[in-house]
């Protein structure tokens, strides 16, 4: 399964800047879609692909920083490259703290922008990859029976089969069978692999009261 081509979203109300950005980004071989306002961007259904948002700080109505906040609320994790007419320090600090990739002051070198976009896309690709993996791990984990999940919790916390059997009030053999099923269903190559997966899934041992 091949990843779709990367796309760059541009939101800028100024026609000169918007059109120029579009052309410049296209000239680097990237797909571009432009928007006049933050509202328009939010309203449009966007292609599911590795992407990057080039966002003007100062927009009529919903501003650039407001959009960034709104996207966080909506779990819309698109890396943002901010562009601004006048880079005031407090605004850039706020933007970067909120996770922006870059904060560029117009007029900027084309290379700076394109580099930032490439970096953002790479970032997004990685994030999407990670997201996909997590999703897969969750699917695997959800396929375990409750008993298997209980066994997995105890195994990854370092208990021996005998100790697990004692805690669960069953035989060591039964634990062994469950453990084998867990390893298979989770597609873990080794115990270390399973431990890593459980860390990513943030599985903690729940003590029985």
């Amino acid at each position: 399964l091949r990843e779709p081509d990367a796309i760059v979203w541009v939101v800028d109300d100024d026609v000169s800047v918007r059109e120029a950005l579009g052309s410049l980004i296209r000239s680097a071989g990237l797909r571009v879609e432009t928007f006049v306002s933050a509202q328009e961007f939010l309203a449009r259904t966007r292609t599911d692909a590795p992407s990057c948002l080039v966002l003007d700080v100062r927009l009529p109505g919903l501003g650039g920083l407001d959009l960034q906040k709104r996207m966080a609320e909506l779990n819309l994790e698109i890396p943002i490259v901010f562009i601004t007419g006048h880079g005031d320090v407090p605004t850039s600090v706020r933007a970067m703290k909120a996770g922006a990739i870059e904060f560029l002051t117009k007029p900027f070198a084309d290379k700076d922008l394109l580099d930032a976009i490439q970096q953002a896309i790479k970032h997004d690709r990685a994030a999407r990859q990670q997201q996909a993996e997590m999703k897969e791990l969750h699917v695997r984990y959800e396929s375990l029976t409750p008993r298997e999940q209980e066994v997995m919790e105890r195994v990854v916390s370092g208990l021996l089969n005998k100790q697990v059997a004692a805690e669960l009030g069953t035989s060591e053999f039964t634990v062994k069978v469950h453990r084998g099923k867990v390893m298979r269903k989770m597609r873990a190559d080794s115990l270390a692999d399973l431990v890593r997966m459980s860390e990513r899934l943030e599985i903690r041992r729940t003590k029985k009261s």
Partner: protein
Amino acid sequence: MYYVRISVVDENGVNRNVAGRVIEFKFDSLPDALFAQCEVIKTLEARAENIKPEMPDKDEALEMLESDPGSSRSEMELRQILELAPQLIAVYGPNRERLYANGVFLGYLGLSLEEWRQGSDRDEFVHPDDRERVTGHFDRTLSSGAGFELELRLRKRNGSYRWLLARYNPLHDDQGQIIRWYVACTDIEDRKHAEQALKSSEDELRQLIDVIPQQVFVFGEDWSPLFANRRELEYTGLTPEEAQSKDAVARIFHPEDLEKLEVLRERMRTEGASFEMEARIRGKDGAYRWFLIRDNPLRDEQGHIVRWYGTRTDIEERKQTEEKLRQAHAELARVARVVTMGELAASIAHEVNQPISGMVMNGNACLRWLAADAPNLYEARENARRIVRDGKRAGEVIARVRALATKTATEKVRLDMNELTQEIIALTRSEINKNGVTLRTEFASDVWPVLGNRVELQQVLLNLIMNGIEAMRTVGERPRDLVIQTQNDEADQVRITVQDSGIGLDPQSIQRIFDAFYSTKHGGMGMGLSISRSIVEHHGGRLRTVTGHSPGATFQFTVPKYH
């Protein structure tokens, strides 16, 4: 007994006939009195012929002379009538010998007939200043033989003089010689006084007209000049004839004002109303000064205009003061504008920066498209086209800023308020965005053109927009909306409304917001609204707040329609 014929001749022997006729009498001896009666003649010669022995004595001869026309009954009757006449009546001999005076005359002089007759000086009672005139008249009558009329002062019995109108009528004999003078005098002292009073009041009026610090005129119905006071002549250097010529105004009025005057005069002739205008008039030194011209019609009973009365008042100093004030005001307005522009500097820089950023990016993109293995000429051309467009846009912003910052022309021109508003919005757009304000414009598409000064009206809009943005700065819970509206109103004016959703106007300060140096803004100069209001009023419009809209404030101003 002598029979005497007396005639009077001058040194050349010509009969001058001053005494009127040849007198013939019989005398025993020649009486001196006969010669005495001819004394007024310079050279006289009495010739005696056929001297008769039965000569009367001197008194007898005089008696005969006096009663020469003969004392008839009709003469007695005539005397009675003369006594009844209210006038002063006297009869003189050909040489103005006193023969008879009526009671009114004698009463006037305070003499009896005898006393009066005995007087020898003919001009005795005549005012010394009038004597020459009287003699002159008599002299002229010698040749013409006609009667005459003259005004003279005659001494009364109490020594005072009164003005009399005297009529002298001669009586001629068959040979055309004057044998009698009949004199009737009417007392005209009162009339003289009235005349004098009239003349002096006229003189006074004339003096007054000449002395008042205005130029005063009388024109005919058709504006032909009939009178101009001395001040006018002194100012313009025109002669009275020039001042009364039809082209007088053309010689002294400034050509631009002359045209206005002529149009106005023509109109007023038909409308018949008084009018006022200001015009420049050239003085004799060649320099023009401003005058206030007022003309009022005078009508006859039928209501037709028969005269125009006009004044021109020198208002040059007032004009200059006004001009200085206007200049000072314009300078203040400019300073305020520059201050506002300073507040806007970041936004304006942004407005210039936007197209420049666009140009740089388009330029870079263009190079990239061309540098590709297969150059994309279409994209490159599009980049170039945008560079040109954006360059123009940057230039326009700079031109607008420069226009607002420099000294402005005072002239008023035809303006489109929509376009003018759009230009100011273009300058403040970034300021509006920066403050998270949503701008809505409601422009009447059929908005009338107005007569105004572009920069000044833009300044008013700039102030109102900046105030609106400022008022919404602290507003968090509701949208920050700025609405700019243009409309035609009922009073032939274009109305511009700027409405914000800000903190609104404090009722306490609403009375003072248009005062100079009053500011509710932190660090505000307090000149914005004061200057805006005077600009609008200078345009003949009004700037005011509109209440009832909440939250926020609404400012509205009007500018008269361009005709």
